[in-house]
């Protein structure tokens, strides 16, 4: 006993000094039937785009070019419309001529049952004989046909009535590719059309209180308050409506954790019918897009990119509002489908609606309606969410010691097409302005735009109705496409306006309106589009010059550009003018010249210099041009991001001033906090920053002393940790604590903390995200517990059952407590099932991933993330060169000369290549690893680098860099962006995430697919990539005193790495951080539920079918070191790769032997002499 205490004390001291010195119900249930092989087909076809597909992409016109090409037809159509009546043409939706679809019943009567349980609805309606619709799954394409007569030939909008559904946790956006006539995309804007989907927030679970108040006049009021009473703490929105003597009180709440921090409300996609006119989702064209349909049979194809949907009708609606005018002796066609604001006002005047609301001063009703922006009723996608901002002391609500959600916006609400919608009513009928308190400090010297859409007045039969009866909102007048919000570093408060005209809207009392604020490019779109077109042209000039001169042109050599490529010089000069014109246009528009606009001038000056003097300055300025191309791309990105923060929206009554109606500025909220108020707030915030307990972030209840509690550590970012916290605490079938009764204290730690904590016995029970190499390092030193294999059988529960080999069922009893027992109770539904490791949990992961956490036949962790290298390619560049995506290394080397003569190259990270090439050659890094030939104790006792095939492969890999001049060091994303490196190979999620945020100007021009393959002897190919795994582990000491704790930790591990939680986590990450936060889950069953497009999903699964891994046997750290030394010797000193590598083999083997000697007691075999060979099994 005494000795034990001494050991503990000693351990503690040692750990301190070393620290100082070195500075779903069920987790596994879904996997029962499907094995890795069934799911990931190694023989699936290569997923890369074909040459034809890539060329089609490059040849596609833009919408403007498409319309220009149809100039004659449009003039004819305008003439025809004068004499002839065009009618709407319908496709026979229920009878597609081709493709994947399913006919279901989809009448409106079924809406309710459908939103309650979509799965049940589909099966139910397949039998019922009701109005039919067609269900389009998330994969495949469907084609319809219609025949037009000669008279019907003309211009049409495409109108689609669809139902956005929620099937199988498929929360991704609905995206389709539209093809017309012979499978051709008419113009590139419709190569991806996005169908809106409403996401509704659920704020707490409150009942609506209905009360009879006879005789009280109708009124509507909204109030906001913070409550801190125990059990009710939160931020409330209370809407009180009195109508016809009935008082309805609706309460919404943003919940708070025990420290008063706001917690994200849940949002779910609404299932409902909507009407969609095919429009441009890139934001360059307002309104619906026109399509020309000539005489004959016309086909229409919807090809799935992501998301499933139900379609009820597809109609061609004749285009209206086309007029002609003459400009510079040319007939110009104008499109005007919406009335202007002036028209709208004129109409109000004509209908006697042009009047301000009149309030009875004694009635005491809310005159202006305040809508706190953090309470949106609907949003376009779950990433549009409320957030906290403490930059102004008068943001409401605000607290100096906690983070309260008080604004919406910033980066998560800035992409074109994202919107937030708010419901409101007014107390008197008349004209209103919309006011807003906001902060737009993103685009210096420029304004950003929002499109205002309104819906309402259909149910109530109001005089002025907004939007479609089915709930689709509409833009009330043309100017509402571009409400402007000016730049200011500070908070502002102003009316929604354009060109200083404050928009007036006619609202009637007792009518519920929904107002949408959608991010748009507004008046800037023309300029951004021009810059984008310019960038494209300059980039192609850059690539052309590059093809002649290479990346480092000789300043003193006369390349004679003027005669070789006069057109390039001309383009450079033209684009210089164009950029200057854009710059001037923007300045005129914004009235200022901020640094953001000035960037264009700098670039224009450079282009001008390069284009002049017969191109004599081109060579000297190539490097600058390259960096400016990047700058221009970034300029476009930031201009497109219409980012601002909104604190509150105000519906402010206008006032009558004679015959005119004027806006009432005094009703607007205060924009900035007073000086002393701000200072005082800052001081309080500073002081309280010392007392915030970040460990408790998101905790809603202080854990009861008596409940089982496990410690979980993770070393990620705060966002990630908060997401796990929320998921653990969720009071639903997905939550952990709710279903197992085990409380979790989750701690965010820094990376190096785990090691010393283990020694001092202050460590956690579970650690999330331990690298595979460390799992083995810890395992062999007995610091983590085995969860599978024979070593795991030693962990017994109170009844003597091996914990990891027993199925435990958790049942909720009548009192709501959860009981976990190994007995299966017939007739009762368990809330959580803890599976056995070997038979169930392991099946969730690729065998390659499991190998990396396995030592001597026992598994020591459950994989959490898994990354691997894949190949990214630029479709436009390859198509322009007439190349296809190389499927094998041989093919890659055949296209290499084509790329190199054009001064392009291929980027392969040598650190990755040195390893995966060995596995592609069918060999392993280690000797004696084949479990069928050798006992696990021999695995990894020697390095396999002296194998002949391995040496040859190593030689081949080195020659890629020496003989074939692959660059060794390069900035992959930058070169990929400029097109200099049209093919790069590297970790898939990392590159994907970088390109998504960083290179938006090449969005849609690149894809990724499996690695090129290496030919086997039998003529087939090996496409293997290497899995890089991090795992969740149970630490030594867990369950020592109480086996229950170990069972709980094991349950946690299963829950956390299970398909449900992993998919949920990945989707929440994307929702929180944006599309660049793709999560590389290791769980095979979670991949389908993450928001990859169908094609990306296929590519990832394709590579997942071809995975190997390097197991970290003792001494593994030495291998990469020496292979890289040998590689660099070959590259730097032109050493023979085989000789260089061979010279290190002895050093590697002796280090491995030395390291294994250390763990001899653990059962590792150590070769005693160079000839010492382990015995083979069965011999």
């Amino acid at each position, binding site marked *: 006993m005494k000795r034990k205490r001494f050991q503990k004390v000693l351990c503690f001291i040692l750990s301190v000094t070393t620290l100082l010195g070195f500075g779903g119900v069920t987790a596994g249930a879904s996997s029962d039937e499907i094995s890795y092989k069934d799911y990931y087909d190694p023989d699936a076809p290569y997923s890369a785009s074909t040459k034809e597909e890539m060329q089609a992409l490059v040849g596609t016109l833009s919408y403007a070019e498409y319309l220009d090409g149809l100039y004659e037809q449009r003039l004819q159509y305008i003439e025809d419309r004068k004499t002839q009546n065009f009618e709407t043409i319908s496709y026979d939706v229920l009878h597609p001529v081709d493709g994947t679809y399913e006919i279901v019943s989809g009448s409106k009567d079924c809406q309710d049952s459908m939103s309650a349980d979509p799965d049940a609805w589909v099966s139910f309606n397949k039998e019922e004989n009701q109005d039919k619709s067609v269900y389009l799954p998330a994969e495949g394409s469907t084609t319809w046909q219609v025949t037009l007569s000669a008279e019907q030939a003309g211009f049409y909008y495409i109108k689609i009535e669809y139902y956005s559904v929620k099937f199988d946790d498929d929360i991704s956006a609905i995206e389709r590719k539209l093809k017309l006539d012979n499978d051709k995309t008419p113009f590139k804007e419709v190569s991806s059309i996005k169908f809106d989907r409403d996401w509704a927030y659920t704020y707490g679970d409150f009942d609506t209180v209905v009360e009879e108040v006879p005789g009280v006049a109708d009124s509507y009021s909204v109030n906001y308050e913070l409550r801190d009473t125990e059990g009710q703490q939160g931020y409330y929105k209370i809407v009180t409506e009195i109508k016809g003597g009935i008082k309805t009180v609706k309460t919404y709440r943003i919940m708070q954790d025990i420290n008063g921090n706001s917690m994200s409300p849940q949002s779910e996609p609404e299932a409902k019918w909507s009407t969609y006119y095919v429009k441009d989702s890139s934001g360059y064209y307002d309104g619906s897009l026109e399509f020309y349909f000539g005489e004959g049979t016309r086909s229409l194809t919807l090809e799935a990119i992501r998301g499933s949907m139900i379609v009820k009708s597809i109609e061609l609606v004749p285009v209206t509002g086309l007029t002609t005018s003459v400009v510079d002796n040319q007939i110009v066609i104008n499109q005007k489908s919406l009335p202007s604001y002036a028209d709208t006002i004129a109409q109000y005047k004509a209908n006697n609606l042009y009047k301000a609301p009149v309030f009875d001063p004694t009635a005491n009703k809310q005159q202006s309606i305040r809508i706190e922006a953090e309470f949106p009723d609907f949003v376009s996608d779950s990433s549009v969410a409320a957030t906290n901002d403490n930059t102004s002391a008068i943001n409401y609500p605000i607290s100096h010691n906690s983070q309260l959600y008080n604004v919406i916006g910033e980066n998560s609400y800035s992409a074109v097409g994202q919107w937030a919608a708010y419901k409101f009513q007014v107390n008197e009928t008349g004209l209103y302005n919309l006011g807003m308190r906001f902060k737009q400090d993103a685009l210096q010297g420029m304004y950003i735009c929002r499109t205002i859409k309104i819906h309402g007045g259909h149910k109530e039969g109001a005089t002025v109705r907004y939007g479609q009866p089915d709930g689709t909102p509409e833009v009330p007048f043309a100017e509402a496409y571009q409400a402007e919000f000016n730049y200011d570093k500070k908070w502002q408060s102003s009316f929604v306006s354009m060109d200083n005209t404050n928009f007036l809207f006619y609202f009637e009392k007792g009518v519920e309106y929904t107002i949408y604020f959608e991010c748009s490019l507004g008046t800037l779109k023309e300029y951004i589009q021009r810059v984008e077109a310019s960038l494209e042209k300059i980039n192609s000039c850059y690539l052309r010059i590059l093809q002649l001169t290479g*990346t480092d042109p*000789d300043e003193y050599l006369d390349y004679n550009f003027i005669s070789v490529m006069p057109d390039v010089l001309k383009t450079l000069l033209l684009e210089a003018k164009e950029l200057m014109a854009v710059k001037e246009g923007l300045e005129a528009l914004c009235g200022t010249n901020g640094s953001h606009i000035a960037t264009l001038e700098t670039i224009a000056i450079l282009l001008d210099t390069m284009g002049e003097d017969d191109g004599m300055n081109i060579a000297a300025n190539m490097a600058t041009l390259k960096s400016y191309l990047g700058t221009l791309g970034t300029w476009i990105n930031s201009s497109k991001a219409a980012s601002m923060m909104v604190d509150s929206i105000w519906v402010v009554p206008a006032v009558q001033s004679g015959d005119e109606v004027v806006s009432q500025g005094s009703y607007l909220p205060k924009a900035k906090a007073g000086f002393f108020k701000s200072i005082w707030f800052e001081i309080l915030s500073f002081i309280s920053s010392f007392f915030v307990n970040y460990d408790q972030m998101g905790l809603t209840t202080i854990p009861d002393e008596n409940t089982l509690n496990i410690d979980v550590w993770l070393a990620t970012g705060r966002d990630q940790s908060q997401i796990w916290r929320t998921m653990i605490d969720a009071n639903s079938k997905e939550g952990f604590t709710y279903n197992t009764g085990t409380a979790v204290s989750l701690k965010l730690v820094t990376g190096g903390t785990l*090691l010393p904590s283990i020694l001092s016995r202050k460590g956690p029970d579970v650690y999330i995200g331990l690298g595979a190499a460390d799992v083995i390092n810890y395992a062999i030193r007995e610091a983590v517990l085995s969860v599978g294999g024979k070593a795991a059988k030693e962990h017994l529960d109170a009844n003597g059952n091996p914990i990891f080999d027993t199925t435990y069922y958790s049942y909720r009893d009548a009192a709501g407590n959860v009981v976990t027992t190994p007995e299966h109770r017939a007739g009762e539904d368990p809330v959580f099932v803890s599976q056995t490791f070997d038979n169930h949990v392991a099946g969730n992961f690729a065998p390659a991933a499991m190998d990396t956490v396995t030592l001597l036949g026992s598994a020591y962790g459950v994989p959490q993330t898994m990354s691997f290298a894949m190949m990214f390619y630029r479709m436009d560049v390859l198509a322009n060169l007439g190349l296809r995506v190389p499927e094998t290394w041989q093919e890659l080397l055949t296209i290499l000369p084509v790329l190199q003569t054009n001064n392009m190259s291929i980027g392969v990270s040598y650190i990755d290549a040195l390893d995966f090439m060995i596995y592609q050659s069918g060999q392993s890094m280690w000797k004696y690893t084949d479990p069928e030939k050798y006992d696990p104790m021999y695995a990894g006792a020697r390095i396999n680098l002296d194998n002949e095939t391995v040496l040859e492969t190593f030689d081949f890999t080195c020659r890629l860099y020496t003989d074939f001049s692959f660059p060794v060091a390069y900035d992959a994303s930058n070169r990929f962006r400029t097109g200099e490196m049209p093919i790069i190979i590297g970790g898939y999620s990392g590159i994907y995430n970088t390109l998504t945020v960083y290179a938006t100007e090449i969005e849609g021009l690149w894809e990724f697919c499996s690695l090129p393959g290496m030919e086997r002897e039998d003529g087939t190919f090996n496409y293997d990539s290497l899995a890089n795994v991090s795992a969740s582990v149970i630490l030594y000491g867990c369950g020592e005193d109480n086996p229950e704790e170990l069972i709980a930790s094991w349950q946690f591990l299963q829950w956390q790495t299970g398909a449900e939680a992993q998919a949920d986590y990945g989707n929440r990450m994307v929702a929180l951080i944006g599309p660049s936060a793709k999560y590389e889950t290791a769980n095979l069953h979670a991949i389908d539920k993450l928001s990859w497009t169908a094609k990306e999903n296929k590519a990832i699964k394709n590579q997942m079918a071809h995975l190997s891994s390097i197991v970290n046997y003792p001494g593994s750290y030495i291998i990469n070191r020496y292979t890289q030394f040998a590689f*660099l010797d070959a590259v*730097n000193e032109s050493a023979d790769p085989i000789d260089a590598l061979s010279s290190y083999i002895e050093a590697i083997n002796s280090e491995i032997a030395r390291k294994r000697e250390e763990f001899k007691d653990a059962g590792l075999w150590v070769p005693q002499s160079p000839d010492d060979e382990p015995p083979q099994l069965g011999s």
Partner: protein
Amino acid sequence: MSQKTETNRPVKRSEVSKLRWTWQEMKNNKTAYFMLAPFMLLFIIFTVLPVVLSIFLSLTDFNMLQMPDWRGIDNYMRLFLDDEIFILAIQNTLVFAAITGPVSYILALLVAWFINELPPKIRAVVTLVFYAPSISGNAYLVWKTLFSSDSYGWANAVLIKYGIITEPILWFQDADFVMPLCIVVALWTSLGTAFLSFIAGFQTIDRSMYEAAAVDGIKNRWQELWYITLPTMRPQLMFGAVLAITNSFGFGAVVDALCGFPSVDYAAHTIMHHLSDYGGARYEIGYASAIAVILFVIMFSSNIIIKKLLSKVGE
């Protein structure tokens, strides 16, 4: 009564034992000890104890996770007899220290001397310029851009432009360049605290001493420097020397950041790297402690040598 008379008489040092005398002295100066205590406590816990512990650990096979076993001098035996890389590391460290230590020391001294001659306002600015590299954290990473292995790296781009090379040089991944580059970077960052203390030293020298020396027959500025300036600022020189030694022996993180770990072919592998290699990647704290002890001994002895050398200044 007799006792009283005895205490009244001052106690002589020879009358009591050494221990008792010390205790008496400590009691008399208890305020001083009391004020020293917080620092001493922290110093002992965080500096002395780890040093002592690492000497103890160097005789075990501690691996950070399990209880250590006693190994005697096995670690030292292996270190000197069976570890080629360690011998290489010692070699690298000595080369590195022999160049960067004296050069950076002399450089700091000379620069400080020159700067001292400048008018005060300009001096303040120039001091900042020279001192900036060592205070601005990871500023040495500019060298990574400068000597990037990418063909777009500055050095490579310039060399390719003038046709000196055709393929980019992998500067920090090429065994031929690693050590010289690291030495250059080390010198660049070396004008640190020592340099400041030299400037301070120059400032404290009493001007009248120069006048007196001039009367006594000093012939030139060099003599002035050698006979008056340097001897007067010996404490600063010592301080600077200690810093130069520790810096040149402990120069590790910068190499890691620039060349990666380990540097190619162990070309810039110093004792510090060897230490973190075993302490980190291999979980062999016992062995790493042995390396640390050796490093400690080397630093300590070079300190003594420097002290001896410095006492010769001005003679």
